[in-house]
């Protein structure tokens, strides 16, 4: 076992891990932060997306030891300081961008990364960016709509589905 230390949502954390411990496993099992979901465990579904030094990565496909010293952002750190939903989370709720909710942590974290680089993405850009995030409920329509709304775009003309 080796000790790793990192910052998660602004707080310093550390723990003893094996070489094979994944970042997703460290977050969920060592820190009990189960908001980061593991869907496929093969780096395809994107439910485990977190930010490492500001970049979206799939935490089930990165070793915890690789994140030693890194600044990690997870879904638990997304809400506003007063506990209310942030703009992206609120838009997902307002526009029914989730049904079962399993993929939502990854969707929100990918969206945050997208909007950081591209504050007003087109529908095509959103769909392109989310190609590594799978949702088996919504058909993506309302997710895309929520992201357009979260980026301040008028979605009133987009049909509800």
């Amino acid at each position, binding site marked *: 076992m*080796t000790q790793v230390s990192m910052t998660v949502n602004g707080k310093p954390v550390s723990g003893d891990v*094996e*070489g*094979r411990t*994944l970042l997703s496993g460290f977050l969920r099992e060592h820190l009990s932060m189960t908001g980061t979901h593991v869907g496929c*465990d*093969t*780096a*395809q579904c*994107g439910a485990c*997306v977190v930010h*490492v030094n500001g*970049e*979206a*990565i*799939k935490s089930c*496909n*990165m*070793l915890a*030891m*690789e994140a*030693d010293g890194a600044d990690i952002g997870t879904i638990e750190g997304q809400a506003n300081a007063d506990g209310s939903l942030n703009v992206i989370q609120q838009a997902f709720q307002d526009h029914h961008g989730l049904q079962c909710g399993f993929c939502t942590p990854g969707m929100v974290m*990918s969206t945050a*990364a*997208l909007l950081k680089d591209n504050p007003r993405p087109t529908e095509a850009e959103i769909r392109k*960016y989310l*190609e*590594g*995030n799978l949702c088996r409920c919504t058909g993506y329509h309302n997710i895309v709509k929520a992201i357009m709304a979260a980026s301040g775009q008028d979605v009133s003309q987009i049909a509800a589905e």
Partner: protein
Amino acid sequence: MYNFEFEKPSTIADAVAALGSEDAQALGGGQTLIPTLKQRLASPSALISLNGIAEMQGVCVDDDGSVSIGGATTHATVAAEAASSYPALAALAGQIGDPAVRNRGTIGGSIANNDPAACYPAGALGSGATIVTNTRQIGADDFFEGMFSTALDEGEIITAVRFPVPQAASYQKFLQPASRFALVGVYLARFADGVRVAVTGASEDGVFRWSEAEQALNGAFRTDALMGLSINPMNMISDLHGSKEYRAHLVGVMTKRAIEACM
């Protein structure tokens, strides 16, 4: 996943030394290796991460105009930083996997793995790149030796890949949308001294050059120069996503699209 020791050296020399221990394996971005380990298809005693080596990071333009990319540079970084110096290669990097995969996966890892459907082997072979390792420089024509097989020796590290920049180039990828690999991908590069056409995703032997098309295009650089040329389906990959004949056909289609993109 079986357990292993983990090391993250900060210099190439330390990485080479660490890779000298028995069954140690280099770790790039891990976007292929970690899923492989999860399936217990490999059981290294130690993983030596190459991601902490500053001298293996980044994109730079050399004095002779070639573009040199550190072996541990991520696809996202190449997509952004090579966009002005070698746009076709940057576009290739920007089509690999998905955004989160591109933020971790590295050029050295992709080229060392030589997956038969990966994009970078086509870019490197099509460009006539030079693979720079800790001990030598290997031309792309001598580097790719077949599916998942390269000229790399045990413990040898790709420290950089150097690309001569062609007059025009284009990568045309027929996406396999589930895996996000190329069902067939063609990288075409037009240099002053000739055209190179590299094909990925298609052959049981991994990435290859379509030399008949190169000769035809050296005679006349237009799509109808390929008239009458075809790829023998015999050695093509066949799976539920596409038959041998389908892939052989796609090689011609994607090559024509690449020619048009270079016009």
